[in-house]
Each structure stands twice: as C-alpha cells, then as structure tokens.
C-alpha cells in the first residue's frame, strides 16, 4: 500500500495543534519550537507531494479513499491534480514562513499557533478533497479559526468589527454554496459526493444555469470577487502579520479554488452562461481594486486592496475558459500567494518597529531595514508583472487569454498594470526611501534571523519561478487540460 501522504499532510497541523495545546502555556519557547517543527514537516511533505505528482500521467494522483458513510456516499477521498498540487505547496510555504514571522508573539502563543494550525489543516483539506462533503467540512474548519486569530491578536482598533464581518461574509458564502451542492447531489441521482463521479453527471443545462451562481459566487466571496470583496481589506488590515499572510496568501485561493472545482468543473454549462458576468465583475475587481489601492494612506490597506485587484485577475483567468487564461489563473494563485505573503510580512516588520502604518509618517526605512526594503521591491516587481519574476509568468497568459476572447476587456484590464506600478512605486519611495522622520532615528531595530529566512525563502521562490517557469507551468497545464475537457473544448 502506498504511503497515505495526503492524509498525513492534512492531519499533521491538526495533531500539532493538539500537541501544542497540551504544552504548558508558560513554556513559550517549547511551543514555538514545536510549531516550527510541525511547519517544517508540513513544508517537506508538501514539497514531496508536489514533486511526486507525475505531470505526464496527469489526472488525479496520490488518491486515497476511505468510506466514511457509505449510506449517503460520503467518503474521505483525497487526491491532487495539476491545479491543487501547487496550492498544497503554497500552503506549506506560507505555513512555514508564517510560523517564522510569528516567533515574537508574546500574548498567548500557545492558542495562537494552535488556531493557526487548525486553520492550516482546513486549508490542506480543501485543496486535496475530492469529496464534496469533505470539501465543505474542511472549508468551514478553515473559516472559523480566522475569527479568533483576528479578534484576539489583531489590530486593536478594528479587529472586532473586521473579524465579525469576515466570518459572516465567508459563512454566508459557504452556506449558499452548500445548498447548491446538495441540489447537485440529489439531481445527479448518484447518491455520492464523489466529485469525480459528479463531474460526469451531465446535469441538464437548465439545472446548471440555475445553480451555478449559488455555487460559484458562494465560494467566490472568499476569493474576494466584487461586490463581495469588502470583508477582505478590512480583514487583512486587522489581522496580525502571520494571519494576514495566511489569509491573503492561502485563504483567498481557497475561495477561488473551490469556485473552480465545484462551480466551473461540476457545472461547466452554467459557467459558460454566467462567464460574461464573472468577467465583468473580475474587471471591476482588477481596475477598481488598483485605483482604491492607489489612494490609501495606510500601508497595509494598500496591500489589502492590491490583493483584491490581483484576485480579480484569477477570476478573470477563470472566466476566459481558455487554455491560456486558466493556466495563468492557476499560476497567479500560486504567485500571488507567495507575493502577498511577502508583502504582508514586510509591512508587519515595518509596523512592528515604527508602530505606525500611516504612509505620510514613514520614510527612510531602507537604511535600518535593508533586507525588508529589497524584499518589498521584489514583491512589487512581481506585482507589476515584470518579466523574470513569477508575476509575469502568471499575468501574461491571463492577458493573452482575455485578448483571445474579448480584446476590449484586455485593454481596460491593462490599465491596472500602470496603476499597480504607480502605487507600488509610491509606497516604496515614501516608506523605504526619502528622509526618515526624526522620531524614528535610532529606534528602528533590526529584524531577526527568523524574519530573514522567511523573506529570503519567499523571494527565492518568486525569482526562481520567474526564471524557470517550467517548474510549475506543466503541472498547472495538466490540470487545465482536464478542465477544458469538462468544458467541452480541446
């Protein structure tokens, strides 16, 4: 029997969370070491999953299936395809760097890491679930710890409001999708939640057109689609650094991924009908998000709205339903995850030392924090889609895909590239360069070695992927091929 790698990866953080809860809350170092050990293990396992995936054979691999409740056709059914394998890796990376960045948390670190890991378990679970019921199960597990993480450790001014808003938005989205999923379950007549079987269920077009919006938009709320994106910047800003990284880096991908897997892949006809609306909304995301980011004066809100804008590109890639667009969207999910994790890490490091995120009050941070400045600039280049960085590998195909379908939309969306460049460069200049305000002189401490490792790792991934796209693009393409076959195209 093959090693049940996917179950192990899903339950590693959960078990680690329980172990951490058993440690005495005063022994903070032991708690942190345990957390780091678990995160390292998860990273190694996710690397293993990623590299054992056979991109020639394609399809769903590393399959594990345990009957959970045969009576209703629920099974613990895990497997990865070319779309989810990179996302599993992304989760491993963000979890590892998130733990490194959170080393300095002093208020109840035991509960912090425990909740963070329960969240991670949920995220892994969604990415590898091939059973619709289990997908919801893990999806909800991923949503709730967020509330506590933001509400307890977040930014004191907005945390209560933001945490409640976020949880309610996401819960509403997921339960609306749930009704759609139940409708699919009965309509198919197969009495199974197995998504591979449901893919072949051939629902009638009328059924698909009716239920697609429930399922797709329910999940897309977590992907930050306009007009349901409102929770996201508030949530990002209120969250503590590691949680922002997780949130923007992984959680929003969860929404996009589930919208793709359950919405587009199970109801392809519906996707074709509603594709135009998705494209229009995604366009608003991209352009509007970029403009709003431009006028923010809070450093973290800039990144928050830039996430909205970039997630719009993922949705846009979905809506093209072409090979290029979908491949770009798959790449963008990974690339944006790493990039935004880096951004939030950098913002957090500046904030922890300057105790303000108000851009007019900041300046000259490159001198005391050179590595943070370099990392932020690299992140910025990725965000602008510069060649040589992962952002280019992701965004360029998306734009090509749109061009194939609707050239006009591509042109409008391209405005965002300019705006993105503008807000990133403005932020870089105002925060990292220029003269340092007098009150900061000598008060800005250096960053720890844990922070450095995290930043360097994230930068290396982005540059590496930009220079050698072949370490990921073929994976995503195998997944895209399958989606296209479901959509009826070649």
């Amino acid at each position, binding site marked *: 029997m093959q090693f049940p790698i996917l179950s192990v990866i899903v339950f590693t953080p959960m078990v680690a969370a329980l172990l951490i809860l058993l440690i005495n809350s005063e022994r903070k170092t032991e708690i942190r070491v345990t957390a780091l050990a678990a995160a390292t293990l998860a990273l190694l396992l996710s690397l293993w999953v990623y590299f054992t995936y056979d991109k020639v054979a394609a399809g769903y691999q590393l399959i594990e299936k345990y009957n959970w409740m045969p009576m*209703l056709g629920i099974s613990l059914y895990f497997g990865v395809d070319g779309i989810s394998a990179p996302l599993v890796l992304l989760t491993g990376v963000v979890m590892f760097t998130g733990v490194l960045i959170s080393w300095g948390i002093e208020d109840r670190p035991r509960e912090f890491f425990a909740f963070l890991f329960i969240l991670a378990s949920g995220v892994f679970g969604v990415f590898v679930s091939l059973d619709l019921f289990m997908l919801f199960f*893990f999806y909800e597990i991923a949503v709730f710890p967020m509330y506590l993480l933001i509400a307890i450790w977040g930014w004191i001014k907005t945390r209560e409001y933001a945490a409640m808003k976020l949880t309610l938005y996401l819960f509403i989205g997921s339960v609306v999708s749930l*009704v759609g999923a139940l409708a699919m379950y009965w309509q198919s007549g197969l009495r199974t939640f197995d998504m591979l079987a449901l893919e072949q269920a051939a629902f009638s077009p009328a059924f698909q057109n009716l239920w697609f919006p429930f399922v797709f938009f329910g999940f897309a709320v977590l992907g930050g689609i306009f007009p349901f994106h409102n929770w996201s910047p508030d949530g990002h800003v209120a969250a503590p650094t590691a949680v922002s990284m997780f949130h923007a880096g992984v959680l929003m991908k969860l929404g996009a991924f589930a919208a793709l897997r359950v919405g587009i892949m199970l109801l392809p006809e519906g996707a074709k009908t509603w594709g135009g609306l998705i494209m229009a909304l995604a366009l608003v995301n991209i352009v509007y998000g970029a403009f709003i980011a431009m006028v923010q004066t809070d450093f973290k809100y800039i990144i928050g709205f830039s996430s909205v804008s970039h997630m719009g590109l993922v949705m846009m890639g979905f809506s093209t339903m072409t090979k290029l667009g979908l491949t770009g969207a798959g790449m963008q999910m990974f690339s944006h995850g790493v990039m935004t994790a880096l951004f939030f890490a950098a913002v957090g490091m500046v904030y922890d030392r300057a105790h303000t995120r108000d851009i007019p009050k900041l300046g000259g941070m490159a001198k005391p924090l050179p590595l943070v400045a370099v990392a932020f600039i690299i992140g910025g280049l990725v965000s602008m889609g510069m060649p040589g960085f992962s952002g280019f590998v992701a965004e360029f195909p998306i734009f090509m895909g749109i061009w194939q379908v609707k050239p006009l939309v591509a042109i409008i969306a391209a405005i965002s590239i300019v705006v993105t460049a503008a807000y990133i460069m403005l932020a870089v200049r105002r925060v990292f360069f220029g003269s340092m305000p007098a009150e900061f002189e000598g008060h800005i401490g250096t960053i720890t070695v844990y922070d450095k490792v995290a930043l360097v790792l994230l930068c290396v991934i982005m540059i590496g992927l930009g220079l050698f796209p072949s370490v990921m693009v073929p994976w995503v393409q195998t997944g895209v091929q399958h989606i296209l076959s479901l959509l009826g195209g070649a």
Partner: protein
Amino acid sequence: MTAFVPSNIFAILPEILLLTLALLVLILDPFWKEASRHLNLGWLTAGGLLLTLAVSLVLARPSAPALVFGGMLRYDWLGFAFKMFFLFSAAITSLFMMDVERLGRRAEAYMLLLAATLGMSLMASAADLVMLYLAIETTSIPLYILAGFLTGDEKSTESGFKYLLFGALTSTVMLYGFSLIYGFSGKTGLYELAASFPTFSLLALGVLFMVLIGLAFKVSLFPFHFWAPDVYEGAPTPVAGFLSTASKAAGFAVILRLFMVVFPSISTDWSLILAILATLTMTVGNLIALAQKNIKRMLAYSSIAHAGYAMIGVVAFSQLGAASAVFYLIAYILTNLAAFGIVAAVGRVTGSDDLKAYYGLSRRAPTLALMMMVAFLSLAGMPPFGGFVAKVFVFAAAVEQGWVWLAVVGVLNSIIGLYYYMIVLKYVYLYRMENEDEEKHPIPISRPYAIALTILSIGIILVGVLFGPWFGLASSSAANLF
C-alpha cells in the same frame, strides 16, 4: 404461563429499572448524612441511569418491531433509541444537579427527574392514544415541579407556575383532539388509526391541528414557544438544560410517530403547515435571541430555533428526513446539555447569568472556555462538531424532497445563529472583566461537572467526525416508521 411473553418484559426493561432506581433513591436518602447527601444522591442517580443504559443496551435491544402489552407500546428502534437518549441526558443532568444549592441535597429532585425520564421513555414507545396521553402527563407533572423547585426564589416559582399553566392548557386541547379521534374512529391504537383517515378530510386536519398544539408546546414550536425563555430563566439551570433537550426530544419522538403513522394520507397538508411553522420558529427564535442579555434566555431562544431546524427533517417526510431529524436531536442533546452545563458551572461561582459575567472567561477558566467554544460552535453548525453534520443532513433531506426554499431559510437562519453565538465567544475570549484583578480568580469546576462536560465535549466531536454509526442508529430508528 401462556400470557407471559418474556420479550414483553424486555420492552419495558428500561422503565422497570428506572422505577427501581427512583424507589432506591427515596429509600436510601434518610440513611445518608447531610454533609455527603448530595454526593451520594447524585452519584447513585447518575450511576444507576448509566447502568440502566448499559443493561438495556445489552439485553433489551429490539429486533423486529412489535406491538406489546395489548397494543399499548411498540417495541421498536425508534422508541429504544430515544429511551437511550433520555437515560443519557438524565444521567448528565443529575451530575449537574449535585452541586446546585437547594436542589442537589433533596432526594425528591432526583426522584422527580427519574419519574420524568420514565414518562419520556413511555412517550417514545407509546402506540396508543391513552398510553400516549398518560406518558405525556407523567413527564410533564414532575417537570412542572422541578422548574419551580427553588421555592424561596420568585423567578423559579414563576417559572414552575407558568410552565404548569401553559402545559395544562395545551395538553387539554390535545386531549380534546384525542377524544375526537376516538369519537370518530372508535379506535385508540395508533397503528389502527391510519386506516380511519385514508383520504384527505377536514376532520383529520382539524384533529391534527389540536394534537399539534399540545406537541408544539412540548418542543416549543412557534407560536407556542413563549413560555420557554421565562421558564428556562427561572428554573434551576440543570433542569432548564433537561427541559431543552430530553423533554424536547420526547416531543419530537411523538411527533415523528404520530404524523408518519397516523396521518400519512394528508402528509402534503401537514408538511406545508409544519414547514411554515418551522420557518417561523427558526426565524423568531434566532431574531429574538440576538437581543438577549441573559445567557439562559439566549439559549432558550436558540433552543426554540433548533426545534425549527429539527422540524425541517420531519417536514421532508421521508426516511432520510426522519433519520436526519433523529440525528439532529442526537447532536443537539449533547450540545445543548453541554451549553447549559457550562452556564450552570459558571453561574454557580459568579452567581449571575448575565452575559457580562462571561467577559474574560478564557482567562479565568481556559478549559471551560474551550468547552464553551466547542458547544457554541456546534450550536452554530461549524465542523468538526456535531451541529455541522446534523444541519447538513436536515438540509439535504429537505432538498431531496424539493423543499429547497426551506433549506435556504434554514441556511440563512444559521447565519443569524452564528452571529449571536460568536458574540458570546467574543465576550469569552476577547473582552476583559471590568475589574481585571478578578480575572486572577479561577473558576473552580467540581468533579461531576468536569466529568459530565468532558463526556459531552468528546461526544460532540465524535458525532461530528465519526458520524456514520450515529447516522446508522438514526436511520434504523427511522426505518421502523415506514
């Protein structure tokens, strides 16, 4: 010897053991010293109930459904499963009762609890109108007394009296309905009656309505829900927990049997009526719960809402629907008992049921706070806790039978629910006490509470994760109905 059929004894084995236990409590009570009386009473009752549960599980499992004792009782899985739930909740409740002032030291309280449990057991398996009515009254009268048990306490007295008045009124209407059924058909056996209502008739609908009033009161269905908050608030907390779980489940057992067995011919009509009532129950319960400042009142309204969710399963009128309603009750009994147990544990130390008393609880009692999170998230319907799976199953049953709108209403209601449950968790985890020094005083949890709450927390997670066997149990109880 021909009249004696051994299996008949097994059909009422739990009841026999319950009666023995109740007598034992009364007989032994005078021999115990005042100092250790509450311990002895509590452990005897809880232990005896668990023993009854175990013995019944080993010896008295039903095989093929059969009418016994001249058609008075039906010996089947539906009745048996519910009996086990009642025994379990009564055992947990007696653990909670031990340390409550003016309640835990009185043998009568335990005796009344056992008598009510006995009544519920008979309710679950009654197959005859006369038996059913007697069982309902056997359940209700001890509960009226228990709700008003704290005689010096105005609120408790009010609670008991209110419960008695509304209970008496609704049960009279129900009895009138029963008498009409008998008058028109000449029969009282539930399984013979279905033949008397073969097609739709206004008569059947009218009778059903009267019976429904009595049962709606039991499960606190809108518009017969308004007693619940006042009664729960005034009654001793463990009793309120028992009322909101076991008593409600007993009502559902009767509803399931009565509606599916006697009135299948007009199922489309009563389904619609129940669907509307379920909608109103959920919505009213949840919306009013939003505004509550007292945790017992909030839990009362939340338990009204939960009756609405469970009702969705009944509305679906299918084997899956009935099974999902039973499953919902399993998850709900565990969860709500835990919630009331925590309220009792906190209330005993702080002396307050105000939501303010929960500020900063996670700093005073981290374990209790964690258990509270488990219970409240399960009520809200979050995995990996029982409430999530239970909600999914009732919604699934509704969608299967084409009640999509009802499922949507349920889903929207669960969002409102999540909001107020989270507010409580926010107080527990986020807020600080007004006087921060007080946070250094931990909240001691006595051993019975620790044991009961641990069992319940583990149960909530078990039902939420390994839901297969529990659903199997629920299914086999439902299968007997069809």
